[in-house]
């Protein structure tokens, strides 16, 4: 662990690492991968310096040796020994890197032995359905585009796709894993650093591949339990002009638990106001963002499957205010 920290300090890049970067690990898996990256960086960096030094030396040596008459049978015995030494060095270097790679692979696999919190994440064009097992009953608690994880506990994220291939990637937490229709993939993550991170689809999945992001919050276990309990509660019922959410066009695609809205095509909106972003990372959450998204989804995210719904000015205001209030 100390060595990892030491190596991290030595890499100048680590300074500019952000909340979507393998250079700022927040989970055990990402720590191991970061260690491997540093190992590779230094071994490869030294090799590159060596090659450039040899190349530079041979150019320097050759500057004034130009001769018109080619040498047809040069004596290469010393150079041949050099080639042997060079090949030996490559074999040693590769052995180090391959073993390092195997060790890390082993560590990633071993995390599976721990008891795990199961989270189901389903990719679809172009957002993420997120489901937790309800601790109170046997059902699933559903949310979208936001993943909360308790620190210090391994979570097994079970990945599924309903349409095309996506890839689940939260670089601060772990490497990516493809989300493939017809295959059950899973990835284990053991976060230990609290805070907000960001994940993004990493496999080209169509027009809005660029806007298929999600937020990840690493909570303390107590915070996580509170959050999950809040998510399990139904939505406050809409009133007045906002009733169109539960009875109108919105309900054919979206679910608001506790109301008549039970559509399954789009994200669950039961606690949408509590999320950090709108439309899978397209806009930061605010009443204005919600209103803009409802009015002109195709302008903000061209190609999205969300249609523009014709609402009166009063309805749009009321719907945005209502959705924002759903914490």
């Amino acid at each position, binding site marked *: 662990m100390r060595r990892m920290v030491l190596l991290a300090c030595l890499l100048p890049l680590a300074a500019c690492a952000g909340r979507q970067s393998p250079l700022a690990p927040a989970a055990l898996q990402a720590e191991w991968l970061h260690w491997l990256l540093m190992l590779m960086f230094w071994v*490869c960096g030294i090799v590159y310096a060596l*090659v450039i030094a040899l190349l530079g030396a041979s150019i320097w040596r*050759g500057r004034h040796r130009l001769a018109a008459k080619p040498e047809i049978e040069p004596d290469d015995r010393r150079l041949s020994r*050099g080639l042997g030494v060079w090949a030996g060095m490559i074999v040693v270097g590769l052995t180090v890197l391959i073993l390092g790679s195997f060790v890390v692979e082993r560590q990633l696999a071993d995390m599976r032995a721990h008891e795990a919190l199961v989270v189901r994440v389903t990719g679809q064009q172009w957002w993420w359905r997120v489901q937790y097992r309800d601790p109170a009953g046997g059902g699933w608690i559903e949310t979208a585009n936001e993943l909360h994880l308790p620190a210090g506990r391994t979570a097994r994220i079970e990945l599924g796709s309903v349409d095309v291939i996506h890839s689940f990637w939260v670089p601060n937490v772990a*490497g990516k894993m493809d989300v493939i229709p*017809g295959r059950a993939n899973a990835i284990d993550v053991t976060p230990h650093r609290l805070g907000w991170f960001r994940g*993004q689809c*990493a*496999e080209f999945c169509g027009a809005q591949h660029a806007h298929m992001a999600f937020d990840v919050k690493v909570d303390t276990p107590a915070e996580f339990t509170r959050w999950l309990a809040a998510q399990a509660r139904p939505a406050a019922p809409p009133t007045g002009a906002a009733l169109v959410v539960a009875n109108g066009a919105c309900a054919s695609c979206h679910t608001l638990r506790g109301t008549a809205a039970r559509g399954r095509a789009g994200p669950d909106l039961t606690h949408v106001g509590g999320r950090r972003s709108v439309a899978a990372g397209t806009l930061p959450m605010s009443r204005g963002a919600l209103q803009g998204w409802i009015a002109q989804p195709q302008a903000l995210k061209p190609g999205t499957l969300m249609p523009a719904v014709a609402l009166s000015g009063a309805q749009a205001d009321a719907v945005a205010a209502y959705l924002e209030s759903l914490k």
Partner: protein
Amino acid sequence: MSRLDDTWADKPGWWGFVTTVDHKRIAARYIVTVVAMLFLAGMLALDMRLQLSVANGTRMGPQLYDESFSLHGSTMLFLVSVPVMEAMGIWLVPLMLGARNLAFPRLSAFSYWLYLGGVLMLWIPHALGITPDLGWFEYPPLSGPGYAPGHRVDIWAQMITFTEVAALAASVNVVATILKMRPPGMTLARMPFFLWAMLIASLMTIFALPAVMLVTSMLIADRLVSTQFFTPAGGGDVLLFQHLFWFFGHPEVYIIFVPAVGFVSAIVEAFSRRPLFGHIAMVLSLLSISVLAFGLWVHHMFAVGLPRLGNDFYTAASMAIALPAGMQIFCWIATIWSGRPRFATPMLWVIGFIATFVIGGLSGIMVASAPLDLQLTDTYFVVAHFHYVLVGGAIFPLFGAFCYWYPKATGRLMSERWGIVAFVLIVGGFNLGFFPMHILGLEGMPRRVYTYGPEMGWDGLNLLATLGSAVSVLGGLVLVANALVSYWRGTPAGPDPWGGPTLEWAAPSPPPPYNFEHTPVVTGIAPLWEHDDLPVMTGLNDEAREVLVTSVVDAVPIYRQHSSGPSVWPLISAVAVSAMFVGSIFTAWAVIWGMLPIAIGLILWFWPVRGRATSGPLRTRAR
């Protein structure tokens, strides 16, 4: 002399143009088309870079961006990199063998016409607004009938069939020529390294390309006749596509890189004024790369969730490539070290190649590690990696080769001064533009995104990347302008301006239609350095198109072979094949009915002529 001219020259005018089977004219066509494609793909790249140079860029919407990267990737891989290596082989192999033409002259004409068909197959629909928009890989189910209606995917898939048939035709031709048409005395042990590289790359092509033709045909079948190869609900598997695609896709990288190794070796040898150090080690390392290349395709699929033990195997196999590749780097540097080097532009390109390509090779070791690849794949780190490998590892040597053999092809020297300007701009701009992409990848920027928000903090490095690319494109224009101006204004080169060791420098510049007046006889690995006056053999008929066929290992003359003359039937057959390919996008019946005109074209192409193989008096003599 004039009898040889009468025998081998094409008819003048357009009829000569469409019927020619002269390997030099066909290769020139290939190269001119490739340069046009390279320009278009470069413009697309610059356009995409401009879109990405600022956060929330508004230059392009997602559709246009997706079309741009699909077209850029497909053009660069299928219409530039592979064909240009084939073209260099078509042009150089007979010259380096002292031969009069390739083994199958009409097949090389057919190969070009089909390649042109592939170019038109991609770019005419683009002009009509039906551009493929799912990348150069087009994974199902995104490219399946459910998610990609219309004909964009079919156009991409059939473009591949065109170019792969063309590449197979060229490869078969190169392999047969190298194995059966070497001059007397050029045993396998005395074969120049470049010919080894072309031989190995061509054999790899023959083994790798059928996989991609198969997989794109399966995709078309899924879309056209409702087969279920890639539909999980119908018992298919989406990963089958990826396995077959990358079984081709990884060797493809080496099919591009191995000829480049040949260019570099030829240039290093000629300009260091000594035979290549470690010739045998170099040949063995190429052979081992060519074998390993078929056993590591899964490293493109580490993130799909295959068993970990399997991933580890592919990690080790992928990293193992570093051994032969690293030995090659050593051999080139050792050749320069122990030689008497002259740093003309081709040699500068070699230095630029080593300095750039090694970065790509080392980042390749990083992405070869299965666990680490999970952080790096599908990010800009990989974009940086493969541009370093393909541009640094193949395009730089190609430019070096272009500068090296330009005087042979045109009879004139290119300007050294402008050559250095182009070199500095291209290599400097490339590194300025692509090195920051490694960092962008490590800052979490995924590939194939048409935009990103300002909160990601990626805009500064992206702007730098755009500036670097623009400088590089400018350098490319200088290179082309230098070539064009030198074509008319350059200093006459004479047959051997660089003092090269291999046989092509014994032919006049530019070589006449028959290449060599007499077939040379080879006594060593650097024939032109060993003899001031090259020994030759006689006995080939001047009044008929005849080539010499020799034995595979020892190059002992066996017989004289009739070499096919100009014919329009390769063109007509290529048109018939194109009609069948295009038709098969719309109806499966096109495959049946399209066979008829193809059969007619081929029958007339192969209409028998008398007197194929003869063993007559063949003599070796000193001039």
